[in-house]
């Protein structure tokens, strides 16, 4: 399919702009005015956003994909991996999310990072991140996707450890990178297996070749498990989820952009991208389902007992990602993508609002030291509340629609699954409203009272938040549950060509629910949500002495001791092993062995030396006898 050269060049420019932004700001870090860098970076992303709209309009109206081959990256013998980009409907959607949210957060950062000395560095990293994220989204083969995959990991590393003077930040950054690397190993193995099986890494070719394979073959199992391992790392699923809460050490806009809206959802994108492969591998799909459910549950529970505003949001992100993976596991790719999109809006909004709070309180993140902020910073409060309502799935905000789409799939799958899914989504309400009430409603804490500098954030921060809030409110209307109207399914229609092949392979299973059940499954949770909100208000909005945590609560507050367990089982043994190998094996065994060989040669030499008595007569006798021996040997031969 020939794509128009105009669109091709646009898709190329899409990569070029952020790279230019990175180079321009990165190379002239010292020379560049601090106020300017944010504007430069934002304007490059803004240009990208415009290009994205054009591309989006193009692919959604013509149903064509734009393919651009830039150059051959690795090419010899029968391996050919070009540097090529593909814009289809799925990537166009991601482009919108990345560039749209990315642009808003860039603008927000201008205000947020105003007083930081490393602001130029910050914006260069941000642009670099956009660049790699776009590579990830646009790549036409898995290896190039892997470039973006690792690249965003790098940016995440750099940005989490942005304030590198504090080793706590650096440790968090390192942890993120290494945990991602563990997932990446799986990804690589998946790629190897893919190349081994199909002889190509091109995404669409792989899908075509795979679709004729029998369902559940071992090769596909290995490939999908590998890819999913990558997704686990990147999207912070169990067992590799502990890095994401730690990653909150970075500046808040980073948390919003990378660790909420875009990068962490790359795992979801990857699975959706490879929908054909995954559909053919039911074992992996079930694994995804299980892991998604557990992640969503556990991190939702942990979130309830956290006190750091960003950590709550981080665990919330993990939980929502788990929710998306659950949707993927159920085979609802467009549901997952829909939730990904809406989640990007309201989670980014929540983070930015949290950033605004932190900004107002001079880097205070503990919600116990907040309270009563509703009156001090009303705009932020309003925006935060919109976010909280949206994420809790209260109609008519966006979260309701995307969650409903997933829940209905879950109920179709089985009543038990539906109830689990509902429970997970209810957890959201609990921790979000706890956060909301403690931080904004509760009577002012001493810290807030003592702080007279609490101020509303500047407009440059509020406006992007307002735009996000608007999106969080209305974005859901593109896909309305079938219960209300069967016509408005813009979103799933838009994505249907992408997942057509996958859904073709496995016919939709599950029974259709009766209308009554559907209404019930819709209304009962809503009632519970209302009850929960009220209960939270009673419980948290009043100034009460926090009760002692009971046993199980303590476990949850301490994040199920996962970090400690990993430390005990992986980190410590590795360090011990390292020490053991270095001290014992290398020094005491191998090196000593070699030295012993050398020394024993010296020793033997020293002994043999004594044969040289210096007595010439003795030498002569030895010589003569040796000659005799040689001649004799010749004789008898």
């Amino acid at each position: 399919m020939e794509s128009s050269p105009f669109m091709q060049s646009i898709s190329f420019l899409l990569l070029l702009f952020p790279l230019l932004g990175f180079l321009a700001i990165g190379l002239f870090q010292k020379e560049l005015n601090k106020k300017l860098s944010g504007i430069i970076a934002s304007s490059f992303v803004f240009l990208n956003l415009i290009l994205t709209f054009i591309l989006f309009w193009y692919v959604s109206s013509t149903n064509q994909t734009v393919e651009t081959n830039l150059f051959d990256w690795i090419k010899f013998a029968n391996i050919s991996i070009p540097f090529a980009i593909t814009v289809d409907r799925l990537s166009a959607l991601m482009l919108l999310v990345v560039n749209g949210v990315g642009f808003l957060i860039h603008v927000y950062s201008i205000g947020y990072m105003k007083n930081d000395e490393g602001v130029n560095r910050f914006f260069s990293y941000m642009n670099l991140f956009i660049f790699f994220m776009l590579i990830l989204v646009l790549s036409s083969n898995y290896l190039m996707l892997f470039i973006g995959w690792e690249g965003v990991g790098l940016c995440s590393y750099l940005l989490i450890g942005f304030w590198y003077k504090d080793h706590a930040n650096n440790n968090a950054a390192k942890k993120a990178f290494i945990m991602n690397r563990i997932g990446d190993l799986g990804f690589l193995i998946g790629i190897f297996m893919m190349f081994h099986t199909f002889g190509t890494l091109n995404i669409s070719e792989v899908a075509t070749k795979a679709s004729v394979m029998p369902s559940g073959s071992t090769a596909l199992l290995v490939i999908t498990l590998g890819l999913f391992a990558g997704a686990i790392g990147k999207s912070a699923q169990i067992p590799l989820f502990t890095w994401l809460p730690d990653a909150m050490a970075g500046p808040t806009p980073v948390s919003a952009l990378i660790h909420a809206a875009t990068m962490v959802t790359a795992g979801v994108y990857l699975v959706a991208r490879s929908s054909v492969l995954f559909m053919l591998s039911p074992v992996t799909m079930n694994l995804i389902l299980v892991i998604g459910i557990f992640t969503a549950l556990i991190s939702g529970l942990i979130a309830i007992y956290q006190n750091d505003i960003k950590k709550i949001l981080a665990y919330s992100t993990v939980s929502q990602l788990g929710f998306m993976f659950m949707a993927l596991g159920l085979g609802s790719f467009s549901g997952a993508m829909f939730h990904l999109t809406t989640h990007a809006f309201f989670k980014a909004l929540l983070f930015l609002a949290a950033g605004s709070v932190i900004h107002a309180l001079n880097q205070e993140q503990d919600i116990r030291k907040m309270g009563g902020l509703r009156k001090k910073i009303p705009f932020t409060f309003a925006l935060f509340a919109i976010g909280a309502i949206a994420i809790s799935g209260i109609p008519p905000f966006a979260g309701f629609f995307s969650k409903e789409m997933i829940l209905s799939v879950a109920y179709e799958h089985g009543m038990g699954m539906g109830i689990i899914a509902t429970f997970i989504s209810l957890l959201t309400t609990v921790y979000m409203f706890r956060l909301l009430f403690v931080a904004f409603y509760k009577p002012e804490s001493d810290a807030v009272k003592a702080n007279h500098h609490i101020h509303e954030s500047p407009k440059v921060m509020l406006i992007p938040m307002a735009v996000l809030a608007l999106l969080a409110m209305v974005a859901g209307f593109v896909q309305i549950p079938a219960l209300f109207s069967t016509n408005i399914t813009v979103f799933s229609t838009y994505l249907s060509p992408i997942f057509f092949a996958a859904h073709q392979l496995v016919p939709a299973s599950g029974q259709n629910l009766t209308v009554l059940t559907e209404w019930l499954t819709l209304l009962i949770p809503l009632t519970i949500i209302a009850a929960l909100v009220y209960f939270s208000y009673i419980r948290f909005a009043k100034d009460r002495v926090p009760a002692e945590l009971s046993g199980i609560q303590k476990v949850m507050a301490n994040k199920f001791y996962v970090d400690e367990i990993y430390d005990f089982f992986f980190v410590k043994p590795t360090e011990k092993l390292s020490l053991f190998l270095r001290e014992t094996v290398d020094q005491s065994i191998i090196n000593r062995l070699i030295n012993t060989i050398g020394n024993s040669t010296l020793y033997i030499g020293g002994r043999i030396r004594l044969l040289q008595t210096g007595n010439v007569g003795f030498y002569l006798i030895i010589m003569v006898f040796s000659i005799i021996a040689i001649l004799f040997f010749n004789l008898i031969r």
Partner: protein
Amino acid sequence: MIIALLLILPLFASLFLFTGKTGQQSKNFALLASLVLFAISLIGGYELIVTPGKALFSNVDLESIFGVNLMFKIDAISIIFVILTTLLVPIIIASTDKKEHRTPHFYALIMLMQTALIGVFAASDMILFYIFWELSLIPIFFITARWGGENARKISIKFLIYTVVGSFFMLIAILYLYTLTPTPHSFSFDSFYQLKLSYSQQIPLFLAFFLAFAIKIPLFPFHSWQVETYNASPVQGTMLLAGIMLKMGLYGIVRFLLPLCTDVVANGSLIFLPLILFGVIYGAVIAISQPHLKKLIAFASLSHVGIIALGLLSNSRYGIEGGILQMFSHGVNVVGFFLCYYMIVKRTKTDKISELGGIASMAPRFATIFMIIVLANVALPLTNSFVGEFLILLGLFTYNKILAIIAGLTIILVAVYMLKMYQKIMYGEKKASTENFTDLTFNETMLFVPIIIAIFAVGIYPSFVLQLLQGVVK
């Protein structure tokens, strides 16, 4: 012509430098000579690229006088290493600091080293190969012994003996091969390649060659000279050792083991690949807790070259080509790494990681460069070592999946020790030793420029090298 220039120029430069008076003049002269060599080797590379499959020849027929025929041949594999040598030597020469007062002999020895290295890579005759192989030991021995640190003499002697023992086995293998060639016997590579060796002949040959190369590379468990020698040698010597000289062993694997012992490599891989693999993991794990930067680089290097050896012996085109590419990348990266080390040690006089910290805030330019080099070592995509490691692991995977997965663990471990090291050195608060850390000067920055260009050039457009190799890798 090109080969003759490549060999004679550094030799004469070296001889001339032995008569030099002041260090500074000698340095400039050596730098100039090595840059000219670099240009010449690039011309050679260009010639090979425009006509794929071509090779440069040079034949000095001394048959009538000494009964030997000096045969040189530079094909695509050789030119990569020749370019690597000529690229790195100017950097190494330029990296010497004024304050250290190197005598002209120092530069003369480096140039002599360059002669030997180019000779090794260009030789097409076993005896020549062997002579240059051994010749390369002489300058590095003196560099280490004379300008080295603590215990340098003792360690350099250990190094010398260790590697000579290895070469001894190679000599035996060479002579054995010589007797197998049809009369009139010949030492030329081509006559060796034409031999059809039986399996029972290949086994002793393989063992002898493998031992020689394993010591040189070095592979576990023959690595104990490496760390000590790196540590004792002056940083220029270490760069020569790690950047170029170790590649001689790997080059030997490509040149001799693969074409001559095909059957053994094909059948015996499952015996020795796990051993190499163990060394790879071993080096990486030790690097995690290594308190000295230089030793850390040594162990990291041990791990990296192990991966290259894995790729070369993986019986797969991907592995072999990836291995060759990775050899080039590793040479560049490790020299960059040692340069960073040198910059740190020059300013702080310590290489204990625990005594360093907070450099990034004082020297942002250095921090960026160091970060790029660290990332290249971590094999991040778009840096040079990613492509190589990817192809190596792919090759290994097509050969044996379990081994590839275990080998893949290194990409995690490398991230662990590299980032840990980088964090402790560059991040955090200033320490006493890093209080007055100044950022790189212009000259120092220029040293890194070619390295960084090489890192990204190979990372972004590796097809250049890969296609060059296409005709040669069988």
